[in-house]
């Protein structure tokens, strides 16, 4: 049995990688992947807690979160497609139209 603290630590590392990835990458697809990484880091924490306490709630949450993540990715990719069709780039440097 692996210690739960190791799994939580792995989750934290994955989350940190994902977070730094969102900061440093300009490509929107990579940023989307980094976000997925953070989401799965959170899922990992759920699973770890569930196995530690012997409770099924965490498993259920994780299953739902994965389903929602799939939906989110679909929307995210759709946004990126429409962004590409209007701006011919998916660089986040170009996505600053929110200002003013």
């Amino acid at each position, binding site marked *: 049995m692996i210690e739960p603290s190791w799994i939580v630590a792995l989750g934290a590392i994955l989350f940190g990688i994902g977070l730094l990835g*969102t900061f440093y990458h300009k490509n929107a697809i990579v940023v989307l992947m980094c976000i997925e990484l953070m989401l799965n880091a959170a899922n990992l924490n759920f699973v770890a807690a569930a196995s530690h306490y012997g409770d099924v709630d965490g498993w259920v949450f994780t299953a739902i979160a994965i389903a929602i993540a799939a939906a989110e990715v679909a929307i995210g990719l759709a946004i990126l497609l429409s962004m590409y069709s209007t701006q011919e780039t998916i660089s986040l440097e170009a996505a*600053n139209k929110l200002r003013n």
Partner: protein
Amino acid sequence: MLIMSDLKDEYKHLLPLLPALLIVPILSIMGFESYEVAYLIILAPFLAFPTILIIGQIFNGQEKWKENLKEGGIIGLGSLLISFSVSFWIIIDYLTESVKFQSDSVATWFDWISFEVLQSDYTVTETTRILGVGVWIDSVTLMLLFVATFLCFLICWFSLGYMNTDPINEDRNHRFYAEFVLFAMGMFGMVLADSFLWLFIFWEIMGLCSYLLIGFYFWKDSAAYAAKKAFITTRVGDVFLMIGLLILYDIYGSLEFSVVFADPSLNGTVDSDKLFWALLMLFIGAVGKSAQFPLHVWLPDAMEGPTPVSALIHAATMVNAGLYLVARMVPFVDVSSHGVAGLDELGLIIAYIGGITAFMAASIAFVQNDIKKVLAYSTMSQLAYIFTGLGVSLWFYNHGKIEAATLVFGGSMFHLFNHAMAKGMLFMASGSVIHEVHHAHDHLHDEGTGENHDFDPQDMRNMGGLAAKMPVTSTAMMIGSMSIIGIPLIGGFWSKEAIVAKTWKASLDYEPMMMGPAILVLLTAGMTGFYMSRMWFMTFAGEPKNDVVNHVHESTPWIKEPLILLSIISAIGGFALSVLGIVKWLAKPYKYEFGIHEDSVFDQIIYELEHAFLPDDPNLRIVGWATIFLSLIVGPIVAARVHGGKLQDGESSNPLVSWLIFISDKFGSQDVSEMANSSLSEALQKRLYFDDFYEWVISKSIIPFSSFAAWFDKNIIDGAIKLIESSSVVGSMQIRRVTTGKARDYILMTAVGALSIFTLIWGVNG
């Protein structure tokens, strides 16, 4: 000029009012009690106010609105007719079945403000009722209600003639009628109010309407100034009134009559000093509203308003509000029921203020040449009589002399009735004179003969000899003046006699300090005789002093009827009502039946006459006859010597007026030009310098303070606000730079924010 058939056409505009007369029978058939529908008295004019204003604004200038509805006058008259008929129903009901009215608060409709009280152990225990809405009806209420509704109705009627035929008011009359009915609502509401707070609210509504109506001709500087002066002067009194109400609330925890009057002494635990100050503050409020010394300066200037307004507000109704408030103080001082002992100084103060005002106003009235100003000062003087009477009555109540107290209280209230009837009518008669003189002048002017542009139709020096031209008006004015003077057997005699006699009784038998007011009211009786007769003789007797008079005709419709009706009431009302025992009835609601108390009407008349002319107390007999001597003989004869005189040859009026003018001629004539130029006369012309003094005080104290306050507001308070404004502009320009619009920056900020929140929570918990 209108011919007879036109006159008939005029009165057919009244036909739409007939349904209003049916309201009372219908309500009574439907089984309502009269006091249950008392709110209709207030509601009718309250609804008429927006109606007239809105319809008037839409249809202004259209023929039908002008001719058939008299620019809203007919609507106002209808609402006042409803008020009057419901009041009359209540009065009849009260006189026949007073048992129904004996509960403390006659009808209460709903709670307006109530609180649930949180106890110290955090449980809500009881609901405290702070203020309800209802009516309070006793004999004083009913008397004032009759005066107010009846006179408002008649004066509205009069206005149809006075206002609508004057081209200067063209297309503005809906404003006048709207303000008129709103004022009427305020007065009715104040009279019916069942708590001091409601009384105060309606009191302020009247103050507002008074301002609006005095300033009706606001493009004239003098009218705008007078309106402002009236509003601000009465406001001074109102501030004190509010302080008084707060103290009362502090003492009793409620302002409702039924709570406060149930036991004003709180089982003898009440602090009489505190109560004294509360009542004194209420009295100062009354002084402002009723134009008594030293807050009297607004009333003469208020004559800038249209004459019906003078009649309505400044003679017949609003100025009585102060008297009503003082009359409501009786339960506080009545030691025979639950009153608080040791408040007799209040009575003395009121009596002194009354005596001083009566004398001062009468002396200023000596030299006024403006017919309405004479009446204004006369109003002040007569109201002061009533204040004196009430002061004496409060003094008696506080010393347990109930018999004398009730007589002088009833007498004062009765004088209020007589004065309101006579003075309302006198103002309308003066309006009739002014209106016709003005028309005659315009008529002359149009034909190119009148060149005098400065002609003042209110100045009595332009009149004289009008008795022949205006028989109805001159007779009405004669009867009204007689009632005010107190000519024996007519109107005000019955009530004035009671006030003077009881003031003397108080000073001779009990309290030497009362001597001041007693002497002042006695002297004023003679002075009243002089200035009222002077006004009448200057206006109606002698040869015309101006060519305009020869072209005056009494022809305007709507004006004569109220004069005739009120003349009859002034002439015989006083006698009839005192025979019916109104004096005792007013002072002892629920305990004294209105009606004949001796074996027969004849016995009752003999009894009243005996009391008026031959009282048992020898001192009072002397005082009574001195009053009669001064007011009947001295005053009028001096006036007749100075201003009396024959009419032009071949002219005559009705027999009574002709006889009076004939008599006035017999006393010869006296030249008073020397006296008219004396320094005393000048001081009186300047109204004893009160206005100048107040102006000086204000310019030395309030105006510097106001300019300082304005500076403070502009620089310190506004400066602080501007500092906040400009610094936030600078700050936000800086913060703007952070919003780059790049998603990455926002994510970074979110992450940093979340991290710092976690760190904080960790730090606090760990």
